[in-house]
Structure formats: C-alpha cells, structure tokens
C-alpha cells in the first residue's frame, strides 16, 4: 500500500472525541465570545431596498410575490362595479396604470406599480427601481430585468389561468359580476383620499368585500379596496387609456443584458411540504429561530426586502440563491392559492423552531374530516375538529368577540362611534363612544388622543353598550401631553361587560376645515379601532341643517368596514351640514 493511502486509511480509522470538559471549555468560550459581539439592528424597509447589491433571484422572489396579487385581481371574486360612471372608463380602456398595495394602507408598505397593455404588464416595485418585470399573460412568461447589473431572466408561469388580454379579462369580470345577486352595494358618501374628493361604494359578497372610490367630480375610479379571505389589497392611483409605447412591454432581452438560465414559477407548487420547508427556512435562517409574525403574502412582503438583503449577505451562488427563492415561492403559494376548506389559522409568531408542543398552523384539506396541525418542530398531526388547539389571543380582530378581553399586546383596541352635535354658538359637542374589545393585561391606564387641538377633554364615563346616561359612571383621567390623556379603567367593570367608554369634548366649528362649501372632520380613533362611524346632528337653534337622510336625529356621513387590523386614522369626511336655507 502506498504511504499516502496508508495515511488516509489511518485518518479514516482514527477516532477522536472530546469529553464534556473540552466541549465546555472550547465551545463555552466561543459562545461567550459570540455573546459579547455587538449585533446590528435590522434596517428599515427603505434603507434595505436601496441596497444596490440585491441579486436577481432575491428580486425575483419579491416580484413573484407581487405577481400573486395580479393573479388575485384576476380572481372571480374581484371588484364588481355597479354604477355606470365608474365602470365605463374601465370598459372602454385599452391601457391602464395603477398602484397595488398589499396588506392595507400604511407607511413602508411596498407598492407595486403596473402599466397594462393588452396581455402584458410592465411592473416595478417601490424601492427596487432597478428591477423591471414584463409579464406576458398570453404566453405565461415573465421577463425580469435587473438594470443595475444588466441581468435578465425568463420565468415560465405554470398554472396561470388563461388570460389572453388582461384588460378584456377585467372587463368581462365586471360585466359578469354587475348583476350578481350575491353582491350588496352600499353608498359610502363623500370623503377625501389623497386630497381628492371621492364617492365610495361598498360591495359585499359572502367571500369578499370591495370598496370602490370614484372621483366625486369626474366619476372616474381612483381606488379599489379589496379584502378576500385573509388578504387585503388596495388598487389606487388608477388611470385609464394612458399613452404607452409597445417597446415598454417587449419580451425581448435588451441589448447588453446577460441572460440567466430560465426559471419556472409553478403556481400549483404550494403543497403542505413546501409550506413546511418555507417555515423552516424563514424561522431557522431569517428570523433567529423564531417563526415569523405571519405567513400570508402581505406578511412576507413586509420582510421581503430584509430577506433579500440577508440572502445577499450569505454569499450564495446563483444556484443556491435560486433554490432559496423557489423555497420561498412555494411557501407563499400555499397560503395564497389555499385549496383547503375554509380558512387557515396561523399563530406561530414568537414560537421557537423545534418546539414540538406548540401548534403553529392548522387547516382542513378539502374533503377532509380532520384538520392538519403543524407544530413548532414542523411535525404534522391529523386532528379532529373538536380537538383543535385553542386559539391564542388574536392579533387581528375580524369578528369582535363578546365583551372585553385582555391580551398580550400593549395597546387597547375598540370600535368607535362619534356623535357631533352642532350647537347654537358655533360650537360642536363631540361624544366619542368607544366600545373596548381588547386591552393589555398588565395596566389599567388607557392612553387616548383627541383629534382636535385646543379642545380639552371634559368628561369620561363608563357603562354597558346602550346604557342610559344615569347608569354611566365617571372615570378619572389626566392629561399626559397635547391632546393626549390617560384614562383610568376599572378592569373588573370591563370584564363584567361595561365596555363602553364615552369621552366628551367641545370644539369650535371653525376647528373643522371648511372646503368646497363643506366642513370636514378628520376620522381618527381615540385608540386603534377596527371600525368607525360618524354621526352628525344639529341643534334646532344652531342655524344649520343636515344634508343627508336623518335617522333618530342623526345623519351618518361615514361608516367604515370592519378592519382586519386596528388602525388610528381613516382619512376625513364631510360633516353633512349646511347653513339652513
């Protein structure tokens, strides 16, 4: 035997083990050293997205996530438009331009900008200005162009429904749904969005709610808010028949670009196994061993840029990046094109990967009598409906529960109904009826913020919803800043069902902005709210009258839909009053 082979054999047969003492010393000191290192803070969305080193695969993941939104718009429960002025421009348009925001309004949300011509969409995403995607629905392909490093890649979209012309598809959809008996349309009256007066129509369907806002003067649709199942999207800044050039939608690779290997995005790839692998990757690699806050597309988009940056830091090869991107794609597809019965439930936030006791996700496969429950160590069990895990305190409130509940989050959440009464001395009395739904378990001090400056809080009372005035009890409060107060809540009273807090203050009428012949009120919750209603009344001696139909003395210029997550500001609406004729 050659000496090299002899040495190799000795090496192979050598067994050397470290005892607990050596492990404690070597690994212990290394771990101590690790603990003393200063770790960087996660960057914000914008700073991450300006990272110029984002690579093709990571970018493609984000574009793909947004592509799902496109698919969503093409879904058979998409917007119905039932009044001619709003429908007409869409039906006549050959091109369109709009922005899509996933997961509702809010700062730092990625915005997908689409330019549509026939079957093709030219897509960019905020913060990723160097990536352009051309989507061709007719051939089921998309071309991703990374302008920074001149890279191009074709992606085949398998499982995409046939949609030869996106505009035609949208038109057919509208025509089909216009007379659908399931839809109920509710007028939302006038309000202001992005400085523009708009009229709203709320279309309700058992599976979806769609709010369409049209310019009050031109009747052109400007924004569509849509919620279906567990996903919310906003389509806004809509323009139709915008001038475009065919070259913008070319599927040819521009000169000077390096074409990468083709990839395939299979929209049918969202299996349970793929979902579990995605959970393992997101928790184990991108989230310090903890499961993420959410698993829906919008949840991923919130962290997509950070994931892209992290992938960039890993020095992966192009193939490795692509493999990781495909894992994430398949993960997203599972919840996006969910094929189970009813809704899925995720409550993995903060659970550590490897926790075999804690259920993090469950759903019922179609035609199955049992549920599939995924645990923190990613093993799966079939569970009968009666044995499903007890839900944790919900982080979102879609269906207000009965009474008041404490939860682990720090904020109070409720529903709010404001009553504005115009008084004779050009004053407005405001009563905010706040029905509390959730609150932290460790404090009885509820901070509130009044919308009007120079309008101090006068009283706070507590009672059961619908209680008579004499049954209300006064609550103590004290100012903690400009227009902000702490209200002392008796938690035992809340738990006993006395959950309505009534705050009262007065504001001069001129504190409400007067524009276009109307007084406007900012729609803001005293605390984060899931629904908001505005009622307006006038004192007979005030010199004002109401401009909307009156029920029990009150006009109702604004009623919000129930939001999936609590929000503070909803914009503004007209007070529905005018000087008495």
């Amino acid at each position, binding site marked *: 035997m050659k000496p090299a082979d002899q040495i190799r054999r000795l090496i192979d047969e050598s067994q050397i083990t*470290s005892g607990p*003492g*050596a492990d404690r010393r070597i690994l212990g000191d290394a771990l101590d050293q690790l603990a003393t290192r200063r770790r960087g803070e996660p960057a914000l969305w914008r700073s991450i997205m300006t990272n110029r080193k984002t690579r093709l695969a990571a970018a493609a993941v984000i574009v793909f996530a947004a592509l799902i939104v496109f698919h969503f718009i093409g879904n058979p429960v998409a917007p119905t438009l039932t009044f001619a002025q709003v429908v007409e421009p869409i039906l006549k348009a050959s091109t369109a331009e709009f922005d899509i925001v996933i997961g509702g309004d809010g700062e730092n949300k990625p915005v997908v900008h689409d330019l549509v011509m026939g079957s093709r969409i030219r897509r960019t995403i905020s913060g990723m200005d160097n990536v352009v995607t051309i989507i061709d629905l007719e051939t089921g392909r998309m071309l991703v162009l990374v302008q920074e490093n001149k890279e191009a890649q074709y992606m085949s979209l398998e499982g995409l429904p046939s949609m030869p012309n996106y505009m035609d598809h949208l038109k057919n959809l509208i025509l089909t749904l216009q007379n659908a008996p399931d839809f109920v349309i509710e007028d939302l009256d006038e309000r202001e969005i992005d400085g523009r007066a708009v009229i709203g129509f709320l279309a309700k369907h058992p599976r979806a709610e769609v709010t369409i806002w049209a310019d009050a003067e031109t009747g052109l649709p400007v924004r569509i808010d849509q919620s279906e199942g567990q996903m919310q999207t906003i389509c806004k800044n809509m323009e139709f028949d915008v001038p475009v050039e065919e070259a913008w939608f070319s599927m040819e690779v521009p000169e000077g670009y390096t074409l990468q290997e083709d990839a395939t995005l299979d929209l049918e790839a969202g299996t349970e196994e793929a979902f579990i692998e995605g959970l393992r990757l997101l928790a184990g690699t991108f989230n*310090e061993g903890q499961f993420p806050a959410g698993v829906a597309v919008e949840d991923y988009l919130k962290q997509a840029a950070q994931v892209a940056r992290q992938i960039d830091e890993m020095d992966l090869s192009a193939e490795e990046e692509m493999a990781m991107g495909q894992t994430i794609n398949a993960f997203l597809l599972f919840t996006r094109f969910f094929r189970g019965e009813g809704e899925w439930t995720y409550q993995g936030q903060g659970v550590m990967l490897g926790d075999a006791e804690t259920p993090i996700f469950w759903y019922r496969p179609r035609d199955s009598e049992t549920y599939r429950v995924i645990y923190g160590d990613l093993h799966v069990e079939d569970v009968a409906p009666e044995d499903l895990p007890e839900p944790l305190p919900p982080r979102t409130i879609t269906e207000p529960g009965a009474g008041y509940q404490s939860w682990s989050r720090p904020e109070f959440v409720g529903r709010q109904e404001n009553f504005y009464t115009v008084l004779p001395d050009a004053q407005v009395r405001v009563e905010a009826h706040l029905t509390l739904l959730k609150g932290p378990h460790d404090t009885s001090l509820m901070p509130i913020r009044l919308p009007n400056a120079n309008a101090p809080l006068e009283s706070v009372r507590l009672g059961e919803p619908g209680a008579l005035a004499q049954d209300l009890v006064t609550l103590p409060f004290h100012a903690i800043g400009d227009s902000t107060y702490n209200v002392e809540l008796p938690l035992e009273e809340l738990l006993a069902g006395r959950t309505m807090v009534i705050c009262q203050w007065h504001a001069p009428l001129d504190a409400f902005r007067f524009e276009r012949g109307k007084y406007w009120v900012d729609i803001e919750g005293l605390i984060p709210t899931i629904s908001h209603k505005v009622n307006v009344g006038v004192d007979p001696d005030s010199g004002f009258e109401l401009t909307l139909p009156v029920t029990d003395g009150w006009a109702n210029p604004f009623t919000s839909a129930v939001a999936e997550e609590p929000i503070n500001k909803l914009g503004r609406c007209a007070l529905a009053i005018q000087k008495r004729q």
Partner: protein
Amino acid sequence: MEDKLLVYRCKRGSREALTRIYQKYKADLLLLAMALLNDRSAAEDVVHDVFVSFVQGLDAFRLIGSLKGFLLTCVANHARNWNKAERRRARAGNDETGAAQADGPLETIACNEQVGRLSGALAELPFEQREVVMMHLQASMTFTAIAQARAISPNTAKSRYRYGLDKLRSLLNGEATR
C-alpha cells in the same frame, strides 16, 4: 449551502449555529491538531483558540470554499505557532508545557489506537512536512492552496509532501514488519 447558512446565522449571534459548527467539525480539527502536535493538551488548546478566533473574526469573515478547509487551515496555523513557541521554550530550557499539561483542564480528549499511530509517525517528520501531508491528505487541499496558505511555492509544498511520505513509508512499513 448548510455551512454558509450556519456562518450567516453565527454572524447574527446564533448560539445554535455555532454549536452545530463545533459539533460538525471538532473531530476533524482535533485530529489534525493531534497529528501535528502529538499532544492532546496542545491539540485542545489549539482547537480552543481556533474557535474563539473564528468568532472574534466573524464580522469580517466571508466563506470562500469549504468551512471545514478554512477551519483546518486555521488549526494548522495555530499548531504551527504553538510548535514555534514550544521550540523557543525548549531552547530556553523552560518546561512550562509540562507544567501546563499537569495542571490543565486538559486530557479530556479520547483517541483510539489509530490516532496514536498517526500522530506518532508524523511526529518523526519536521513540522513543515507534517502539515503539508495532513493538509493535503486530510483537508484535501491542493498544493497550490497549501502553498498560498503557507506563503511558499507550490513546488516547495510538493517537495515537503514527497519527503514526508518517503519518511513515512519507512516508518509505517517498519512498524508493520515489527
């Protein structure tokens, strides 16, 4: 890709990832250290220093090639430094090493007979030959890579390897015939 993810997670402070790296490669590293130094206490010291240095340098660390190869090269470097220090101590007639061995929290490494044969045979070679033989045969490093790591020419690396093997041939064959 696992090693890249482990390094990445280490950079973000993951104790689990560092533990995984240690468990994954400690036997290889200890074996190399033993083969180069023929001293269990010194081998443990060297692997200890390699891991602590690895963590200290994580921020600037970029994994190019294999993590195992990188760590083995680090062990060879630390072993070389330990060997130089040992020679200095021997020249000065200082017997600190023996004292350290007696006191140390060491001797917590268990080796089978093959480790003894390997390190015993290699101990007969000059250190420079030992490390080239082990880096080539255990870490699967090319002579070019060894040359770069040692700041020598590839031919020198090859010569050291050849001389080392020639000597090992007689050592191992002699041992086999005994």
